[in-house]
C-alpha cells in the first residue's frame, strides 16, 4: 500500500457569510487518498465537488475538522506555499485561468511566483510544453488557442511545478471530443507513468469509469465510495442523485432487470461484449 498523500478528518466547511446554522457545503468528510491513486468525484451541481477539491490546495480551508496534504495541515499558514506546490488545480473554464500574454509566459507563471532562476524556468517550460504536445504554440497569445489547447496549457503550467497531485475540476466540460480525449489521455499517462495522484470532478460516467476509485457526493456528504464497477453499477442510487452510468453500465443493468443472467459491475463496452458472447455460448 502506497503512502497516504491526502487526508481529511471530519472535514466540515461552511462558506463565509453563511449563517452557522445553514447547511454546510461539506459535512464531516473522512477520506484518505494514497499517492498514485486516480479518483473521480461525482455528484449533481452544488453537491460540493469543487468545494472539496479546493480544500486540497488550501484555496478553501476547513471550518471544522482538518485536511492534511503529505502530512501538512492546510490550516497552517506556513505550509500553504508547499501545499500549493504539491497540489496543482485546473478549473472548468479554460479562459479564466490563463494569466500569461503568451502560452510560454503562462506556463512560466507558477515558476516565476516561486522565484525559480530564469534559465531553469525556460528549461522546465520547454519540457512541460513538449510533454503535452503544445511546444509549437509556445509564442501564441491564449485567445488564439482552442479550448482543448488552453486546458493543456493550464496542465503544462502545473507540470512545470512538478506536483504530486492534480486537482481537476470538470476539465473537459467545455471541450470537443478530440480535445477531451487528448486531455484525458495526458492525465492518465501522467498518473500511470509518473505516479501523479489525480482527483477529477466530473459529470460524465465515461470519465469516472476510467478512475481507480469513485466518490459520490450529495449535499456536501460523502455518500459512497468504491471502485467504479461498484459505484457505477448501482443505478437506482445514481438515478436518485440525478446521475447515470456508462452506456454499457446502463444497458447491463436494464438487461439484468429483464431477467438476463449477467454479472454485476459491467461498465465498459468490451466487458458487455464478452458477457453476451459467453451467454450465447451457454445457450
Amino acid at each position, binding site marked *: 500500500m502506497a503512502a497516504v498523500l491526502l487526508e481529511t478528518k471530519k472535514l466540515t466547511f461552511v462558506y463565509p457569510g453563511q449563517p452557522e446554522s445553514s447547511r454546510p457545503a461539506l459535512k464531516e468528510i473522512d477520506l484518505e487518498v494514497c499517492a498514485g491513486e486516480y479518483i473521480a468525484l461525482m455528484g449533481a451541481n452544488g453537491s460540493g465537488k469543487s468545494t472539496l477539491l479546493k480544500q486540497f490546495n488550501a484555496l478553501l480551508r476547513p471550518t471544522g475538522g482538518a485536511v492534511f496534504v503529505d502530512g501538512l495541515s492546510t490550516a497552517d499558514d506556513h505550509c500553504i506555499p508547499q501545499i*500549493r506546490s504539491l497540489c496543482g488545480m485546473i478549473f472548468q473554464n479554460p479562459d479564466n485561468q490563463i*494569466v*500569461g*500574454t503568451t502560452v510560454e*509566459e503562462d506556463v512560466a507563471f507558477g515558476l*516565476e511566483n516561486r522565484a525559480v532562476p*530564469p534559465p531553469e*524556468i525556460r528549461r522546465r517550460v520547454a519540457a512541460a510544453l513538449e510533454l503535452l504536445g503544445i511546444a509549437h504554440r509556445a509564442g501564441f497569445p491564449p485567445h488564439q488557442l482552442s479550448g482543448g489547447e488552453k486546458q493543456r496549457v493550464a496542465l503544462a503550467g502545473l507540470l512545470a511545478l512538478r506536483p504530486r497531485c492534480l486537482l481537476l475540476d470538470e476539465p473537459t466540460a467545455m471541450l470537443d471530443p478530440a480535445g477531451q480525449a487528448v486531455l484525458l489521455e495526458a492525465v492518465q499517462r501522467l498518473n500511470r507513468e509518473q505516479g501523479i495522484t489525480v482527483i477529477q470532478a466530473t459529470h460524465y460516467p465515461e470519465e469516472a469509469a476510467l478512475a481507480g476509485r469513485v466518490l459520490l457526493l450529495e449535499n456536501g456528504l460523502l455518500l459512497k465510495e468504491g471502485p467504479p464497477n461498484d459505484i457505477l453499477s448501482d443505478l437506482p442510487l445514481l438515478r436518485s442523485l440525478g446521475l447515470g452510468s456508462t452506456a454499457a453500465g446502463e444497458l447491463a443493468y436494464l438487461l439484468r432487470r429483464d431477467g438476463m443472467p449477467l454479472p454485476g459491475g459491467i461498465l465498459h463496452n468490451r466487458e458487455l461484449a464478452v458477457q453476451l458472447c459467453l451467454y450465447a455460448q451457454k445457450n
Partner: protein
Amino acid sequence: MNHSVTLGRYLPGSSFLHRLSPRIKLLVLLLFLVILFMLQTFAGLGLLLILLLVAVATVRIPFRYLVGGLRPIVYIVIFTAVLYFFFTKGGVVLLRLGTLTIEQEGVSAGLFMIARLVGLVLMSLLLTLTTSPLDLAQGMEYFMRPLGRLGFPAGEIAVIMSIALRFIPTIAEESQRLLRAQQARGADFEGGFFSRARKFAPLMVPLFIGAFRRADELALAMEARGYRVGAARTRMHEEKIRAADWAVLLLAGAALAAVVLTGL
C-alpha cells in the same frame, strides 16, 4: 477567436527597430520628446520629420497602417490650425474674412504646431507598432523598479498590466458576443446607440457581471498557482541590452546635444 484590428497595434516583424531593447526604445522616445519640444526652427523640425520617415521606411510597415494611425489626429490638426491661424496675430495679413483675419505669424505658428503634432504621433506609433505590449509593460516595469524600494508596488503593477493586455481580446470578444446575443433577443442597437442610456443596460450589466466573475476566478487560479502579493518573483525572459542598443541610445543623446548646442 478574435479578429479585430486596432490601429497602432503591434505588428510582429524583425526590423532593426523591432529588435531594439524595449527599455532602450522607451529611453530614446523620451530623448526625442525632449528634442521635439526644444526645436525652435522649421529646419530642425524638418530634419527630425525626415529622420522619422526614414525610420518608418526601415520598419516596412504597410502605408495604410500608418495613415490609419494618423487618422485620429486629423481633427486635432484641423482644430490646431483654426486656433493658430485665426488667433495668433502679427506679420502680413494674408486673408480677410469679414472681421476675422489670417496673418503670417499665425500661419507659421500653426504649421509649426502641426509639424510637432505629426512628429509626436509618428514617434509613438513607431514605438507601439514595433514593440509588443508585453515587452512595453516589462520595459516600463524596469524603470519603475527603483521606486519599489520606496514601497511603490512596481512588480504588482507589471502583473496587472500584463493581465490587462492578456484579457483585452477576451473582453472584446465577450462584448461582441453579448451585443449579438441581445440583438438575437430583438434589442435594436442600430440607429444611435448612444442616444439613450437605457440601451446600455443589456450590454453593460452582463459585461460587468462577467468581468467580476472572471476576476474572481482568475484571482483564485493565480492564488492556486502560488501568486502572492509582495512576494519576490523572477521572470522567464530577461531581455539583454546589446551593442546596437547602446549605439542608438548614444546617437539619440548626441542628437539632443546637437540641438542644444546649435539652437536649431
